[in-house]
């Protein structure tokens, strides 16, 4: 692995973080706008080990909890689980394919929302159903779309390295 690859890889992740705090607010309804921060985590898990992915998920989740204190801890739990499962499943089951990665992004986003909703216990009944069956799939789709575009544009920078580790 070349040293420049690492920097370019971090550049993509930082770009997504910046997009999250700059562009996302202008992409329409907050419930359906793509989650750039989660996407950065999922892209990170493509090439990172499950333990590190879980730690990264925990940090990101905790930071997000600081922004939404009503469900403090639920985000950390959700991102930890999603990070670990994504990294593990990506290594064990999934082939290196953009569409497969898109499905991973979709599933990861939806699963994150599910865990947050269940763990926080803030919503229930019809509201929970709407969130899980309507808004979450839409947000998962938009996040997956952005993820596919990102991989299509910067796929060479974030590709899994067999020799890594």
């Amino acid at each position, binding site marked *: 692995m070349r040293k420049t690859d690492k920097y370019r890889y971090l550049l993509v992740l930082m770009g997504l*973080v910046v997009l999250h705090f700059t562009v996302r*607010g202008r992409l329409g309804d907050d419930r359906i706008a793509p989650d750039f921060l989660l996407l950065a985590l999922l892209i990170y898990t493509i090439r990172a*080990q499950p*333990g590190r992915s879980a730690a990264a998920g*925990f940090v990101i989740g905790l930071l997000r909890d600081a*922004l939404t204190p009503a469900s*403090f801890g639920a985000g950390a739990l959700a991102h930890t689980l999603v990070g670990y499962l994504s990294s593990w499943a990506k*290594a064990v089951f999934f082939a*290196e394919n953009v569409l497969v990665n898109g499905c991973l992004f979709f599933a990861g986003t939806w699963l994150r929302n599910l865990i947050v909703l269940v763990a926080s216990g803030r919503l229930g009944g019809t509201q929970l159903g709407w969130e899980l069956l309507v808004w979450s799939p839409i947000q998962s789709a938009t996040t997956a779309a952005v993820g596919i575009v990102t991989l299509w544009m910067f796929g060479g920078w974030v590709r899994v390295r067999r020799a890594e580790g």
Partner: protein
Amino acid sequence: MPIGADRYASRADTLLFLGCFGLSVAAMSLPDTWRDPIAQGLRQTILAPFLALQQQTGLLAAARGRYDAVVAQRDSAALAATFLPELRSENVRLRSLLGLGTRLGWGYVPAEVLHQPEPTNPLTFIVSAGRQKGIRPLSAVVSPEGLVGIVASVDAQTSVVLTWAHPEFRASAIASDRGVSGIVAPHGAAGPGVWLLELQGVPYRQQVPEGTVIVTSGLGGVYPRGIPIGTVVGLASEAKGWERTYLIRPAIHPSALSHVMVLTGARGSGSDIRGAFQPDSVHP
């Protein structure tokens, strides 16, 4: 074999995951008195630059929106300001024409000036009245301010007006307050006096003071008597002690016209229509 499946089963990864999992559950279990300071600390340290970035982006978006709104308002105001004076001026002119029509009573046809972009437009222009409305060649064309010109040719729907600025324009004229008479013609086609008229052939022994209003004399059978032509602004030349030529500022510039009145032949060239024009229509 899938990528690195063996290495992903390491105990360190599992322990790290379990540790994070446990911390997450612990975070969920924290009382509000503990979690609020933690969240506040994270917002004021690690998240501070990101929140500032988000705030600046929001301000930028709002500023952009306000800028667009201000630009739109400015453009609307500029557009309104562009048309407002023209509309007011046109209204004033139309009211003046109505007043003139009332005073003339009969024997006239109102017409709209169909301006063209050519630079020669002030010399000859088209009006929206022709043979079907009773217009005939050599009909006088007037505005509330005074004489505009003469009809040069007539079509079915339109007419060509030769204005006082045309080099071939001539009109027999007299001073409104004295018995001085002469021929009015364009002063020239070049120089600062290009849009002025001159009163030619004034006997040397007669002087015309500055500010005197010059009107048509009615001689020659083309223009009725009493149509204001312009105001004397000074002496143009003297010819060897036997005649003087005076400069006249025209009553109205052709390019300022939007509507005119064409005096029809039924009125007769010998009639006097001085009273139809407002006394202040020619500004000294």
